């Protein structure tokens, strides 16, 4: 059984059919790429997977259970965490707090226990802070834990956003253009950390990216979208030589 499966997924905004009959399966420990020209509907797929939008047709199943109709925060708690194309951090609070907020739902102490600083508060806060620092050190951000997220350079903000998504303990991680705006060295580093994350946290990753060397170098499988439809699926090699894909990107007869 695949970890995440979309069947006949479609959404229409009024008369505009943004996605139609989208089918794909994400296996455990797999890194899958979602590519396609601008406006093909890639981010819309992410918004459907996190239930920001409700699909007009089709189903999405995580471990065999439908997630349609759930609230976005419930989807995250259920195991699908994401990053955003244009970074959305909690800018005016500390890097550490950014990560700790995503751990909020995994803690138990009540508001009253927190205000009264009962032992459960200290115990859970300490455990959480430790876990958050561990996560930050995966991305080499541990020394910046106390600085405001706003003050981080661009590349590190991207990393922090991934760290925050991981803090929600997902089974599936959705990365929306993680390498956008990065230079080749940073992109290369990012490739390594994404593979590292997959192995260390044993999660599956679905990513949108335009940098083809990045996508080809890291993804085991690719799905190509164009005008809201899947035009090709397969390994990097198959996609590279697929005439439909070439036509979609370069224009064809």
């Amino acid at each position, binding site marked *: 059984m695949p970890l995440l499966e979309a069947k006949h997924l479609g959404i229409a905004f009024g008369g505009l059919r943004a996605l139609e009959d989208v089918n794909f399966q994400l296996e455990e420990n797999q890194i899958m790429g979602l590519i396609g020209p601008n406006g093909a509907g890639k981010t819309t797929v992410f918004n459907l997977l*996190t239930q*920001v939008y409700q699909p007009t047709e089709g189903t999405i199943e995580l471990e065999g259970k439908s997630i349609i109709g759930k*609230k*976005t*925060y419930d989807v*995250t*708690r259920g195991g699908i*965490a*994401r990053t*955003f194309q244009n970074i*959305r*951090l*909690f*800018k*005016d*609070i500390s890097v550490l*707090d950014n990560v*700790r*907020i*995503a*751990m*909020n*739902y995994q*803690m138990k*102490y009540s*508001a009253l226990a*927190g*205000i*009264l*600083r009962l032992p459960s*508060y200290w115990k*859970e*806060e300490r455990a*959480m*802070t430790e876990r958050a620092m561990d996560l930050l050190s995966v991305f080499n951000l541990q020394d910046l*834990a*106390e600085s405001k997220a706003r003050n981080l350079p661009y590349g590190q903000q991207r990393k922090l956003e991934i760290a*925050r*998504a991981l*803090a*929600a303990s997902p089974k599936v991680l959705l990365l929306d253009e993680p390498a956008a705006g990065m230079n080749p060295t940073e992109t290369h580093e990012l490739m390594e950390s994404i593979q590292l994350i997959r192995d260390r946290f044993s999660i599956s990753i679905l990513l949108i990216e335009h940098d083809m060397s990045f996508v080809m170098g890291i993804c085991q499988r690719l799905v190509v979208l164009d005008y809201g439809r899947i035009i090709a699926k397969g390994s990097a090699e198959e996609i590279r030589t697929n005439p439909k894909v070439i036509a979609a990107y370069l224009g064809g007869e």
Partner: protein
Amino acid sequence: MNRKKVTVYGVILVLILAIYAVVTGLTDAGVLNSYYSGILIMVCINIILATSLNLSTGFLGQLILGHAGFMSVGAYAAALFTLRAGLPDSIDFLVALLVGGLTAALFGLLIGIPALRLKGDYLAIITLGFGEIIRVIIINLDFTGGARGLRGIPKETNFSWVYLLAVLTVAIIFAFIHTRHGRAVISIREDEIAAEASGVNTTYYKLLAFIMSAFFAGIAGGLYAHHIGILNPSKFDFNYSVEILVMVVLGGMGSITGSVIAATVLTILPEALRDFSSYRMLAYSVVLICVMLFRPSGLLGQYEISLTRLFGKLSGSKGNKTTKNPASGGEKGA
């Protein structure tokens, strides 16, 4: 808890007790007459109002223009309770305050559920409307005394009570902000979409902050009712809501110490300027304009005055990294 933190809590506790001792000492010695102690009581009431509004405006990031409405609900509920319930004097006052707070919280819940679906300007206008509706309803009801006001409320509020409750309010809100729940509230201010994607139930936390905010406003209302002795609906108009909001903005949205300072200054300032009667409000406005020109994010912005940091600077070392909340535990030992 490490030793540095215990020291900080200790110092805060001593400071709180010292201020209290000085004020009561001066009152007993006759230096502070009833006019001055009246102002001090209003300072404390306004501190409760400003810090509680800061929770929903500064930390949750929602513009609320009807805080005086919640205060009036609490004031009338508490006053009517004291007048009608006839409990023994010893517990009467405290129960009345609690009734005031809970009634205001209930109104917060009822208004919050529909209103918090809206954002920004729209929410501001809804809460403004709520404040006005409450006032008009109070004027037109019989058991609230209508436009003539509610009279004969026993004057049970004294400096000790308002001071204790102001300290408690500040401590509770400060402590709340540094729990997982408080962080969830702040994440909504920072980016609601990202908060939702991080597993934060935004509707729940918006309501929680809004209700807490209304609860403390209700307590402040109860204190006010038992301080003045007469409730007049016209006191709780739009202007008073704005006055509280000005305290929050001036002190810095998201800074509790800022709210405390601004509430103190803005309550004392108009009284101190009483000698220049006709220029009084002019000077007040000039002060506000100057602060907004030179410190647009308020006196303190989101900065908190922290003894932990101060001690760290004095001893030349960096303060403990994870403890930035000195005001929290100290008061609870009191």
